[in-house]
């Protein structure tokens, strides 16, 4: 364990294998909560034994075998549970009753991560529960790490996770890939959960929050795995590209005091070119498959920004066209705000303000501070300083985020100083 590189390699391997092992155990024993305990025991055993005894020839088979043995111990200790499992098995069709040996090739070759992910993002769960369960069961993060990432006590997060498992059990969700008809809808839920995890990490990546578990990288890792399992799904690829193209800008996004730096003021030399190139490559391949969905469109917008060497080189007509398509695809009024900004960049601030006036008729966004923030930017560009200062201040009063509020207050203050 003295060699940090080796132990981090082990840790990486264990985190990759954990959902596959958990999936195999859940599929075999059909008890999610007990399976998770058993897999944790197996992972712990591996973390203790592998550094001294060396990596087994088949690490996944080793873990499945240890976890399965632990499950059998648990079942022996608990006769009631054993009877329930017998009843469960009896309720299964004959072909499903053939239980493969824990170390047989059938189990080893099958990657159950995807089925596990569908289960964790089950529609019976609230989004915050699905997020927590996914990070725990598929991401392999500890409850303490997840609690830390969401700034809640560990006991609270433990309750949230255990209730999610309970809810899945009660809802009768089966551990299986959804049917073809249900698949698209269920995959949308999975992608939404991964997107939320990414955003949670990205949004909080201001200086003050650097100690928080890096959820953005976890979301990218998980989405990369889903992309690996469903390489032909263009929206999975689109989401992965969107995450990469956004994350590449992270170093430039906040200043030394955690203050927000908007896209047009960012130091673009600090953007991660390697990550941008990967995102563009993934997106280009996805777009070639046709059927362009919302994640691909958002990734395409991010790519246009990322490809501009200077803010003034940004291809705004292209971004406006993409936002127009995105509005048709999603009916999200927040997209309308971005569309108004793009329109203001292409046709001048008056065009953007006219769109904002229309948007403020929409009850879903009327009175939202971001409407005021966008209006302030457009008014400033039009040279309407008094009105811009007032709009920035209104927006600052509505923001629920200190870095954003500070940014808006500073904009108002600087502009007022020029009067």
């Amino acid at each position, binding site marked *: 364990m003295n060699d940090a590189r080796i132990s981090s390699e082990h840790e990486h391997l264990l985190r990759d294998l954990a959902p596959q092992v958990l999936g195999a155990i859940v599929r075999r024993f059909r008890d999610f909560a007990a399976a998770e305990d058993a897999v944790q025991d197996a992972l712990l055993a591996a973390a203790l034994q592998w550094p001294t005894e060396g990596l087994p020839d088949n690490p996944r088979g080793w873990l499945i075998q240890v976890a399965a043995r632990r499950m059998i111990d648990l079942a022996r200790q608990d006769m009631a549970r054993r009877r329930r499992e017998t009843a469960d098995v009896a309720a299964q069709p004959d072909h499903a009753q053939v239980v493969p040996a824990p170390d047989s090739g059938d189990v080893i070759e099958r990657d159950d991560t995807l089925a596990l992910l569908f289960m964790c993002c089950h529609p019976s769960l609230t989004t*915050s529960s699905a997020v*927590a369960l996914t990070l725990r069961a598929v991401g392999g993060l500890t409850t303490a790490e997840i609690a830390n990432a969401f700034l*809640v006590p560990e006991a609270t997060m433990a*309750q949230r996770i255990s209730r999610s498992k309970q809810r899945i059990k009660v809802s009768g969700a089966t551990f299986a890939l959804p049917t073809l008809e249900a698949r698209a809808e269920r995959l949308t839920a999975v992608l939404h959960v991964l997107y939320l995890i990414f955003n949670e990490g990205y*949004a909080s990546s201001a200086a003050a929050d650097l100690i928080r578990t890096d959820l953005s990288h976890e979301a990218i890792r998980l989405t990369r795995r889903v992309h690996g399992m469903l390489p032909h799904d263009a929206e999975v690829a689109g989401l992965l590209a969107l995450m990469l193209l956004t994350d590449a800008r992270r170093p430039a996004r906040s200043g030394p005091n955690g203050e927000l730096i908007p896209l047009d003021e960012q130091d673009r030399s600090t953007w991660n070119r390697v990550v941008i190139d990967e995102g563009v490559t993934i997106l280009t391949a996805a777009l070639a498959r046709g059927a362009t969905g919302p994640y691909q469109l958002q990734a395409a917008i991010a790519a246009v920004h990322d490809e501009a060497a200077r803010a003034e080189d940004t291809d705004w007509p292209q971004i406006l066209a993409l936002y127009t398509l995105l509005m048709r695809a999603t009916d999200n009024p927040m997209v309308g705000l971005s569309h108004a900004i793009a329109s203001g960049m292409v046709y001048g601030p008056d065009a953007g303000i006219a769109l904002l006036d229309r948007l403020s008729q929409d009850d879903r966004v009327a009175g939202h501070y971001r409407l005021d923030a966008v209006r302030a930017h457009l008014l400033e560009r039009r040279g309407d300083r008094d009105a811009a200062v007032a709009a920035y201040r209104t927006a600052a009063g509505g923001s629920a*985020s200190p*870095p954003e509020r500070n940014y808006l207050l500073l904009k108002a203050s600087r502009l007022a100083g020029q009067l």
Partner: protein
Amino acid sequence: MKFILMMHAPRQGWETAGIGTWPPNDIKAHIGFMMDLNKDLRESGTLVSGEGLDGPERAKLVRARAGGGAPITDGPFPETKEFLAGFWIIDVESAEQAYAVAARASAAPGKGGVPLNMPIEVRQVMSAPPVEQ
């Protein structure tokens, strides 16, 4: 999203009609109600933290002043009609869920089991900025 629920008790009558003047069973019912509420918040994975506060009689006011020094003034402060008796910070999915918890806390039983209907101030806890498009 996180919210703070601030429970205000009326200062007028704290000494004459406050919890100290209730019959024991009413006090027990009130404490039991609060414990049940906290247990439900904990078990639903909602509670971030929650505390009850010492009475306003022992409150102090500290205010730094120009030229140095920060004098300490003894409470209670007659100008305040209500005082903060306790708070919860909860992590929920919507403001509506926070309002529902506040409504439950507001109706905590008082003397004779009559709901106190205390004002509960609900404020969102500031969080990370939104992701730019």
